[in-house]
């Protein structure tokens, strides 16, 4: 370790600059990253700034049509069935939507990866038990689990995170196990073992860094999936309950007014699509950027197309 810490490569720019440069090369991914930053900003600041505006009812503005620019900016996307401004509500709902998805992805990734590392690197019995567990979770209908947990415990953000996290654990478990099985046979792992490194050190210092990029790419993609799952649960009425709001819940609240006021369901649905689309684009970019074989596609400027 000490050797690599003292050698400084002069010519290469700091890591984050080269990452930003690669991101700039892929314009779609760049836009996606900007949009996601915006959504995260909304999630952090929205509720504190707009909570009051988003819950204030205004019966004169019931189902107010969108694009009425004479109104306050929060009403530009129209008003909902109680005259509450849709744009403000979408911004406020970003927090719950993001919190559930982020919480579920982080929990399932940490637990799944640890189990996967154990299954890949320890004894055969432990591996068998863990894999059968994954099979059971995979074949267990996630919806049933959601209903059961949300009936026993109140349907809150925390419980929703637990439900979604459990259903996504097998994804990380299976991926990290498969990667570990391959990586553990490589020369540097065997060298570390010969040099007497402890199992803990081999797994966390030698194997995990190799597996990690794949897991991060999957997590980005999974974030989109979890968001859609949460939206579906809220849509079916077994997710987050009013007066809390998420985008999925907003779509379902607009459903009765579909034929007369399409914008009630349309905008929150569009917010969901744009966010998941951005996550997918970013995940695609990461797959290329983190893969040493494919990275050249982003590092050299595309002269032919630009």
């Amino acid at each position: 370790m000490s050797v690599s810490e003292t050698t400084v490569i002069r010519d290469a720019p700091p890591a984050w600059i080269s990452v930003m440069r690669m991101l700039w090369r892929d314009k779609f991914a760049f836009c996606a990253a900007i949009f996601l930053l915006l959504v995260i900003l909304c999630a952090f600041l929205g509720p504190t700034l707009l909570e009051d505006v988003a819950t204030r009812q205004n019966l004169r503005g019931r189902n107010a049509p969108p694009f009425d620019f004479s109104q306050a900016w929060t009403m530009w996307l129209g008003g909902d069935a109680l005259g509450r401004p849709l744009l403000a509500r979408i911004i406020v709902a970003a927090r719950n939507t993001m919190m559930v998805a982020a919480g579920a992805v982080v929990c399932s990734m940490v637990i799944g990866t640890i189990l996967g590392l154990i299954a890949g690197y320890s004894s055969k019995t432990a591996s068998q038990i863990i894999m059968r567990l994954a099979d059971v979770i995979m074949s267990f209908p996630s919806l049933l689990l959601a209903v059961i947990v949300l009936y026993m415990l109140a349907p809150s953000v925390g419980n929703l995170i637990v439900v979604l996290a459990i259903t996504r654990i097998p994804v990380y478990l299976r991926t990290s196990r498969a990667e570990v099985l391959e990586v553990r046979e490589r020369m540097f792992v065997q060298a570390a073992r010969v040099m007497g490194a402890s199992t803990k050190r081999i797994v966390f210092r030698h194997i995990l860094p190799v597996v990690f990029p794949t897991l991060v790419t999957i997590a980005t993609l999974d974030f989109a999936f979890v968001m859609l799952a949460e939206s579906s649960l809220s849509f079916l009425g077994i997710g987050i309950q009013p007066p809390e709001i998420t985008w999925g819940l907003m779509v379902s609240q607009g459903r009765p007014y579909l034929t007369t006021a399409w914008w009630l369901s349309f905008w929150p649905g569009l917010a969901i699509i744009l966010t998941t689309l951005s996550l997918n684009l970013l995940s695609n970019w990461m797959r290329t950027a983190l893969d040493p074989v494919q990275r050249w596609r982003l590092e050299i400027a595309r002269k032919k197309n630009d």
Partner: protein
Amino acid sequence: MKTFLGKRAISSAISLVGLIVLVFFLSRLTGDPANLYLPVDASLESRERFREINGLNDPLILQFFRYVGDLVQFDFGMSVRRSEPALDAVLRAFVWTLELAAITMTLVAVLAIVVGSLAAFRVGGVFDRIATFFSLIGASAPDFWIAIVAIVIFSVGLGWVPTSGTGTVWHWILPIAVLFIRPFGLIVQVVRGSMITALSSAYVKTARAKGVKNRPIIFVHALRNAMLPVVTVIGDQAAALLNGAVVVETIFGFPGVGKLMIDSILQRDFAVVMAAIFVTAVAIFVMNILIDILYAVLDPRIRY
């Protein structure tokens, strides 16, 4: 091969047993059906009688062993709600879901493989960009939102297809179209990625050098080798459909197993819930084994 099938069957059976134990005890935690089926002011005696008739009075563990005893004889119990054997209700719904899933997945697989391969043939070309863009949007769209927007446009606005229910061929179009979108988007991406790798391999270069035409190169040489990850993803997506496309089935009033399951959970119809989960789990296990066999067919290097 035979030992492999045996092993897979055994491990599937173990998972199935785990699933049944888990579902049995977890579903009992959702509440007492007596509160749901009897009026609020029902007397204590009538509640007792309801529980007695439906065998809910015994200790949970006794109920469980009785259930397992019946299960061994393929008796899944009666549906409280429908007063018919639970298995009948489930199988009837499952046929609907199976048809829906089969039609959708066939369309998805064929179209996604063709589109994905053509997109991979010229990376960065016009067709590739269009295909990538639309498949990404498809993979990102929430199906419930697509469903209601489609109903507004095609059923209410244009009046081309019915909004919900079953009966004619027209009733199938919207559910299939909505279910088609997300798996299609995902699988096009997987096919494209996998084909890019295959098309840059040495054997494709050799085929080119020999003067093989483009079409056989794509669809014979490269595609067959690129199919393994594609088959995996198709399997996952088909499993998700078999588990019941709950949201789409609910919106379109489609009498499939997903709708049956959510209704039964909400109505605490435990026998139907258990039977539905059992049937879908068996179907998914069978499909997984078939996919493993398909691996061996596609790639003769894989032996079990």
